[in-house]
């Protein structure tokens, strides 16, 4: 078994219109910029995929990555906890114009809903959000005298994530706080596509150090020296590049 795929274009080729796509990252850390830009390339060439629901902690920053997807009009709906950033203009404008939908989820509930999707738990109770606007319409229940909100699992058709090292079987490690949502999203998507900075043969990752076991991974693309979203934004980058 070998889960490596040669190109970013091949890895992202089967993502369809209307798909629900989980995208790893917290702000720029862990953002799979190259996978996202490959998806934008396909959209620009073919008009697809569009009408996507994107699940990420945020809603893009500047004009690269998720912000660029939104700017191209590929995203119909965001599910996130914090759609603000240093430069949130792309999402903000579309949201205020009613051109993109938003489901706002507390960050810990977002993480737990994704884990639940991956772990086969259709619903769970959390104290988070009880008595607030974000719990409106959700079932509540009392356990041991305290009130809780029922939350449902989140699943996706596809997860796009960035990892540090991957072996041919899809076992993964991450780099520092770039780990964030990626191990959860890998569990919760029907198809998990990973860009890895380093590829090693099976045995190249200490079995104790594997963070995402290969069972959660479907495709692996080698992207050495991946771009860092924060660096791109500080340099004023846009995707696709605007040429004179």
């Amino acid at each position, binding site marked *: 078994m070998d889960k490596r795929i040669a190109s970013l274009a091949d890895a992202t080729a089967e993502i369809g219109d209307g798909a629900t796509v989980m995208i790893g990252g917290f702000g720029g850390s862990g953002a799979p910029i190259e996978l996202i830009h490959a998806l934008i390339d396909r959209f620009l060439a073919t008009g697809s995929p569009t009408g996507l629901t994107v699940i990420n902690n945020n809603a893009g920053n500047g004009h690269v990555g998720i912000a660029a997807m939104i700017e191209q009009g590929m995203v119909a709906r965001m599910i996130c906890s914090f759609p603000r950033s240093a430069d949130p203009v792309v999402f903000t404008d579309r949201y205020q114009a009613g051109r993109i939908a938003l489901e706002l989820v507390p960050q810990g509930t977002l993480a737990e809903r994704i884990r639940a999707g*991956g772990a086969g738990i259709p619903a769970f109770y959390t104290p988070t959000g009880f008595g607030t606007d974000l719990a409106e319409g959700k079932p509540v229940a009392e356990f041991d005298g305290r009130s809780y909100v029922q939350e449902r699992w989140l699943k996706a058709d596809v997860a796009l994530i960035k990892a540090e090292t991957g072996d041919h079987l899809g076992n993964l490690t991450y780099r520092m706080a770039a780990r964030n949502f990626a191990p959860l999203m890998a569990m919760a998507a029907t198809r998990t596509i990973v860009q890895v900075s380093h590829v090693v043969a099976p045995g190249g990752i200490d079995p104790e150090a594997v963070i995402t076991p290969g069972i959660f991974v479907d495709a692996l693309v080698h992207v050495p020296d991946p771009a860092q979203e924060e660096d791109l934004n500080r340099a004023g980058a846009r995707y696709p590049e605007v040429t004179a």
Partner: protein
Amino acid sequence: MTGKLTNAQIAWRAAQDIQDGAYVNLGIGFPEMVARFQPAGRQAIFHTENGILGFGEAPAAGEEDWDLINAGKKAVTIRPGTAFFHHADSFAMVRGGHLDVAILGAYQVAQNGDLANWSTGPKGVPAVGGAMDLVHGARRVAVITDHVTKDGRPKLVQACTLPLTGVACVTRVYTSLAVVDIEGGRFVLREKLAALSFDDLQSLTGAPLHVEGDVTDLTVPEL
């Protein structure tokens, strides 16, 4: 009844349906034998409830490391690509539908797919382990079993009389006499030993066997 498959032969037959690269959990005891019979050129990746994916075969006697065991508490080995994880992650793999196949033993299987394999009733100490999770988690839940009990009663039944492990969960049964699918609440016969007539097989089965299309010979090598 003379001709029937040995346990090794039943395990061999079940192994033929496991694809290359499949993620597989084998129940403790008899089902563990399936791992021995992977067809040449195919390599399944075995999962064990206690937190290992991609482990290898048993070590030589005297080479056991008792921190490296399977769910049956037997020593196993590491292979390139093995991963360790804790029990909640292990059952996220199970419950979350990430395993391709689980192969389990059975006391009884009902024609609607109900499985009884954890308790023979109120006497003795009940013990369930991971079976109830596996039957609702793996994409395909198969059973390997003798076709009848030691005292000759059917194990494929209309409705289980023993405590259930799971409801409507089994989709294929590999027995010492036949391969039977469970579809639409019925047993559908796919393969049977060539020397055994349909009527004789039916007489050893506790619910109607249906035929849809060909019934092929259940052929296995000497093992």
